[in-house]
Structure formats: structure tokens, C-alpha cells
């Protein structure tokens, strides 16, 4: 039942926006309220997972299933989705969008959210693939909400690279299914994850190795792993702020989730060394490219986007460091969702005031927008891994995992790259916060509920940095137990 409360609200919201024409502002308000229901459903799943017992399933052939890993992703997706809808362009009042654009936005952003929720609750890895492919299509449609040369370019690159990459992941899925069918004959639920896990040890290593390479390239493209990351800075920078928050905050996490599911299957057959090496390699490469791209960055949204690539890299690297590494990586994933969704929404505020995405045009933010400025500063400090925020703890755990496996040089390289990112982000942040107020920019900012909502993110980040809540600890340990048998 809870599955219906998880997936139906965003679909209802999309239908509502589609049926009410012309667009009315109450649709936006109703849809924001609807987005709270999946959060409740996710909490129910988390509660169920914490009490133990078999994972709940739903539908014919156990189409949907919610174990601890799914529940963890559900809460990330539904929380960021609600935040994105409440702070979306439809409730602001002074947006640059026309009614038709708002309607299009409401339809597709809700379908996008539904696809992400379906992806993390699908039991069948084929259905998971279908949902992740659908996320590309729905999100691409609302990147060029206002047609400009840059937004059209970004959306074209996104849909072409995204769809091609994800098609390769499907080739990998087909290869794995081929091996399974070869083993036991055609079965309708053969692509169900628990069935795959059970039969994994009997599959053929040669085939599964090829399949995993395809899957890693495919889902890696969606996750923003280098060298398939080229679409990401464009798309994240050109999308409307709440969509950027959703794409960077949770879409990347959903793609990483898909990789983790497959890694678990492959590891049962080949041992973890094979997937670990690939993940560490691509993770490190992503960090190198992202760190140096941040140094030369002139656009603050692209700066945030490259930071997402850096964190995807770090998370994948963590997934390759054994159970402790997986724990740290998931902790980092939660922190990244929280921090990045807040920062992209704040970047939307800044753009609204300064009408520019260029770093050179932004200065004196602390004076012009005191609340946004302080929140942005806190978010950036969290992002670069300073205490008392969650990422500090996560990165510390990741280093411990790496050193305990004797990857000394790898961890030194990671430390150097994190330092490069640290220095360049602090430099950019300084430039934004202080300095003269540019001509024609108004000063002052009322403290309203829109800003107050973002303090939730800051609160979560601080809490995750000061203490590890017992339910979260249990949940993360369960997830590690599931994927690293």
C-alpha cells in the first residue's frame, strides 16, 4: 500500500497540472502539498526496514520492493523533491515564466520525480532501467524552459549523451539476462534483483564482466562520471534552479544506486576486486577533471556542477573501498543531496537578484542578500568538508577505509584533489560574499518562509556532522550488509 502513496502523488500532480488549463497558481500550491505524501511513505518504509523482517513487495511478480537501500534513496528523493516543489518557480510570484511555461514545468518535474521514485523502488532491474531512462526524457524537456542558445545547446547534449549512455546500460542488462536465461531458461521474474543475487554465483564470469563494463559506462554517464560527464555542467547550469537542485541532489544519487545494485550482483560472482578497481579508477579520474575545472570556473552554477562531479567521483571511489568505504560513500551521498539541493536553490536566489551567472558579476552578497549570503557560505563550507558539517565526518570515514586497505598513495591523491577543490571554492566564495555592491543591485532581503525552509538542510548537515543518529546508523549498516555480502 505504501508504494501507492510513494508513487501516485507525483503522478497525480502531473495529471492535475496537465488537466487544468490555463495554468492556475493553486495547482502549484496543491502539488507542493502532494509532494509531502511520498516523504511520509518513505518514512514508513524506513521504519519497516529498521524493525527488520523481509522487505515489503508490491504488484505482480513483486514488481516493486523496498529494502533498506531503497528506503534510504526514497527519503533522499522525496525530501529534495518536496523542497524543490515548495521553492519552485510556481510559488514565488515574481517569476520570469509565463503560464504555459509554468504548466509545462509542473507536468514534467512531477513526472521526473515519479520516475526517480519508481527507479529506486523497482525490484526488476529492467524496470529500474526504464525509469532511469524516463528521468532523462522528462528532465530534458524542462531545461529549455526559456529558449536561449545556451539552454537549447545544453538540452540537446543532455538528451543525446544521456540517452546513448543509458542505452549502453541496457545492453549490459540484456547481456546479464542472456546469461541468466542460458542458465535456467526464460523466467518472467529473472530480472528481479533478489533472483539475480541468488543465481549470481552460477553465472559465467566472462559474460558478467562484459555486462558490468556496459552497465558502469551507462549508469556512470547518468551519474556524471568522467569521461562521460560532459553533459552535466551544461545541463545543471542551464536548468531552472529547482530542477538543478533535483538533478544534482538526487538524480546523480539514483544513478549511483543503480551501479551499486549491479555491483552487488557482480561481486557475488567475481569477488569485489573487479568492480572496486573500475570504480576507483573512474572515481579518481572524475575528481581530477572536476577539481581542475573548478579552479578555472567563471560561472557559479557550473562551479556547483563540477563540485557534483567531484562528489560523484568521491562516492564511487568510496564504493570501491570495501564495506567501510561503502558506509562512508552512502553517508557522503546523503550529505551531498542535502547540501547541493540547498546550494542550487540559493544560486537561483542569487540569479534572481543579480541577473547573471558569471562569478565576475557577483560581489557583496553578504550585504545585498544577508540571509541567502550566509546560507550560501555555510553550504559551501559544508561542501568543501569543514566541520561541523556531515561531509567532514563522511570524508574522514572514507579516508579511514582507504588507509585500512593500504591504499596510501590513492588516499594522498584524493587529499590533494580535495585541497585543490577547497582552495578554488574558498577563493570563489570570497569573491561572491565580499567586495563592492555592483551598480543597480538592490540591498536587503526580507526573512520569509522560503529562506527558512533551507535552514532545514543546514540543520541536517550540522546534525550529521555532530552525531550519527542511531536509526541512520542501523539503516546504513543494513545497506552495507545487503550489498557487501
Amino acid at each position, binding site marked *: 500500500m505504501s508504494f501507492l502513496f510513494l508513487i501516485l502523488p507525483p503522478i497525480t500532480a502531473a495529471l492535475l497540472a496537465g488537466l487544468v488549463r490555463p495554468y492556475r497558481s493553486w495547482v502549484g500550491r496543491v502539488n507542493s502539498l502532494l509532494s509531502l505524501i511520498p516523504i511520509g511513505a518513505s518514512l514508513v518504509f524506513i521504519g519497516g526496514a529498521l524493525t527488520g523482517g523481509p522487505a515489503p513487495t508490491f504488484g505482480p511478480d513483486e514488481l516493486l520492493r523496498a529494502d533498506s537501500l531503497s528506503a534510504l534513496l526514497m527519503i533522499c528523493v522525496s525530501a529534495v523533491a518536496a523542497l524543490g516543489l515548495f521553492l519552485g518557480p510556481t510559488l514565488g510570484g515574481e517569476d520570469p515564466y509565463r503560464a504555459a511555461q509554468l504548466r509545462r514545468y509542473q507536468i514534467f518535474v512531477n513526472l521526473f520525480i515519479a520516475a526517480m521514485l519508481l527507479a529506486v523502488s523497482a525490484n526488476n532491474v529492467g524496470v529500474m532501467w*526504464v525509469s532511469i531512462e524516463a528521468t532523462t526524457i522528462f528532465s530534458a524537456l524542462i531545461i529549455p524552459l526559456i529558449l536561449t542558445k*545556451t539552454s537549447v545547446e545544453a538540452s540537446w547534449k543532455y538528451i543525446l549523451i544521456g540517452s546513448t549512455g543509458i542505452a549502453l546500460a541496457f545492453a549490459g542488462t540484456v*547481456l546479464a539476462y542472456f546469461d541468466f536465461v542460458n542458465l535456467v531458461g526464460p523466467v518472467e521474474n529473472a530480472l528481479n534483483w533478489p533472483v539475480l543475487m541468488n543465481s549470481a554465483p552460477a553465472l*559465467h564470469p566472462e559474460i558478467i564482466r562484459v555486462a558490468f563494463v556496459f552497465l558502469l559506462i551507462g549508469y556512470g554517464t547518468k551519474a556524471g562520471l568522467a569521461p562521460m560527464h560532459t553533459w552535466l555542467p551544461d545541463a545543471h547550469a542551464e536548468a531552472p534552479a529547482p530542477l538543478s537542485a533535483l538533478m544534482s541532489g538526487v538524480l546523480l544519487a539514483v544513478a549511483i544506486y543503480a551501479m551499486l545494485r549491479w555491483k552487488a550482483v557482480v561481486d557475488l560472482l567475481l569477488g569485489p576486486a573487479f568492480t572496486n578497481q573500475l570504480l576507483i579508477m573512474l572515481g579518481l579520474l572524475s575528481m581530477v577533471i572536476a577539481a581542475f*575545472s573548478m579552479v578555472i570556473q567563471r560561472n557559479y552554477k557550473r562551479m556547483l556542477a563540477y563540485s557534483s562531479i567531484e562528489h560523484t567521483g568521491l562516492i564511487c571511489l568510496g564504493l570501491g573501498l570495501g564495506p567501510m568505504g561503502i558506509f562512508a560513500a552512502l553517508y557522503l551521498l546523503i550529505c551531498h543531496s542535502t547540501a547541493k539541493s540547498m546550494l542550487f536553490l540559493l544560486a537561483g536566489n542569487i540569479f534572481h537578484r543579480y541577473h547573471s551567472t558569471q562569478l565576475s558579476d557577483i560581489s557583496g552578497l553578504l550585504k545585498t542578500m544577508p540571509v541567502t549570503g550566509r546560507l550560501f557560505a555555510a553550504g559551501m563550507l559544508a561542501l568543501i568538508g569543514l566541520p561541523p558539517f556531515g561531509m567532514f565526518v563522511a570524508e574522514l570515514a572514507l579516508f579511514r577505509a582507504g588507509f585500512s586497505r593500504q591504499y596510501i598513495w590513492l588516499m594522498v591523491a584524493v587529499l590533494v584533489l580535495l585541497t585543490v577543490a577547497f582552495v578554488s571554492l574558498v577563493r570563489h566564495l570570497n569573491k561572491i560574499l565580499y567586495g563592492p555592491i555592483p551598480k543597480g543591485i538592490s540591498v536587503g532581503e526580507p526573512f520569509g518562509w522560503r529562506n527558512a525552509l533551507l535552514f532545514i538542510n543546514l540543520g541536517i548537515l550540522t546534525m550529521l556532522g555532530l552525531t550519527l543518529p542511531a536509526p541512520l546508523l542501523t539503516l546504513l549498516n543494513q545497506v552495507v550488509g545487503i550489498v557487501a555480502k
Partner: protein
Amino acid sequence: MAPSLFSQLSTLGACLALLYGLLLLWRRNLGSYVDAFQGQSVVLAVLFGVVGYFGHDPELYFVATVFVALKVFLMPYYLRRMQDRFAVERERDPYLNVPASLILAGLLVILAYAVMRPVVTISSLPTRSGLPLALALVFIGLLVILTRKKAFTQVVGFLILENGITLLALLGTYGIPLIVELGVFLDALMGFLVMQIFIYQLHGTFESIDVDQLNQLRH
């Protein structure tokens, strides 16, 4: 023992599908790309029937019907309409010229055989000899996307790539579970329609469908 009729037919079909894919590399006229894609889709539809008949899987006839509606009628129809709009555009100077593309395509076919060797060795399916050709078709689709300059050509390349994966699934597993198959078709249709919208938007904002002018976003 001589290969069975089923085995011969499936290999023949896979070869034909690959040849249609190669057409994209040496023709320059956008219209001929649509013809190639449509021809290839017809071949695949027939193969669905062949596998359904010899593999005793009536479900495949249903899948074949959806496939025909989508890839033999609907998509080529939209592609032709788009091509009429941009009739003057031709694939004049791709990033990689025709002879080099064809040589590279040859190498990719060899690569596909190398990658699929373990698969073919393990399998005892009568259709197994077509599997490397299906993967080769996936690679050719990638090559077209990466080396051609017109957004239109890239879309056809993507459709060819999708056909390659469909062929892989058909020959390797006699089709994937129905619910996944239908989801894949739905995604393929929506993805195609969105790409089509974007091409019109590209043309509207840049007054051409050349992707090498997409260089506003750097670093």
C-alpha cells in the same frame, strides 16, 4: 551438421540489419538515412516473427506488432516530415570522412566479435552467430552519433543503436520480459519525440541543425 534453417535465417537477418546500419556511414543525403532505418526496422520485424515461430513464443508476435507500428511507420513518418523541412541540409563534411569511417566500422565489427566471443562460445542457441553482429550494430550507432555533424543524423544513429540492442535481446534471449519490453518501447517513443522537438528548437535558435556550432558552453 549443417546449420538449421532457423540459424541461417537469423544470421542473414543480423547481416542485413548491419548492412543497413553501414549505409548511414557512406550516404550523405538525410532522406537515405530514413530509408536505411526503415529498411532495418522491417528486417528486425521479420526476425521477430522468425524467432517467434521457431522459438515457439507467440508473445513475440505481439511485440513485433508494436515494433512495426513504432519503428516502421511512426518514427520514419516523423523523420521524413522533419527531413522535408531541412531538405537542403546534407551531411557534407562529417568529423570523420567516409573512407575513414568505413575502415573504423570494419575494426568495430572485429571488436564486437572479440567482445562477444565468450558469449558465443557458451551459448547453444541456434541464433548465437548473429550476436556479434548485433553488438557491431550498437557500435556503428555510437560511431554515427560521435562523428556526424547534423543533429538529424545523430538521432538516426541513436535509433540504429537502439535497434542493435533490440537485436541483441532478440537473438540472445528471444526477447526480454514483456513488461520491460513495453517500458522500453514507451521510453523509445518518448525519447524520440523529445529529440524531435529539440531539433526543431535547434533549428529555430541557430537556424541550422549543425551541432558544431553548439559551442556556447565551455569549461
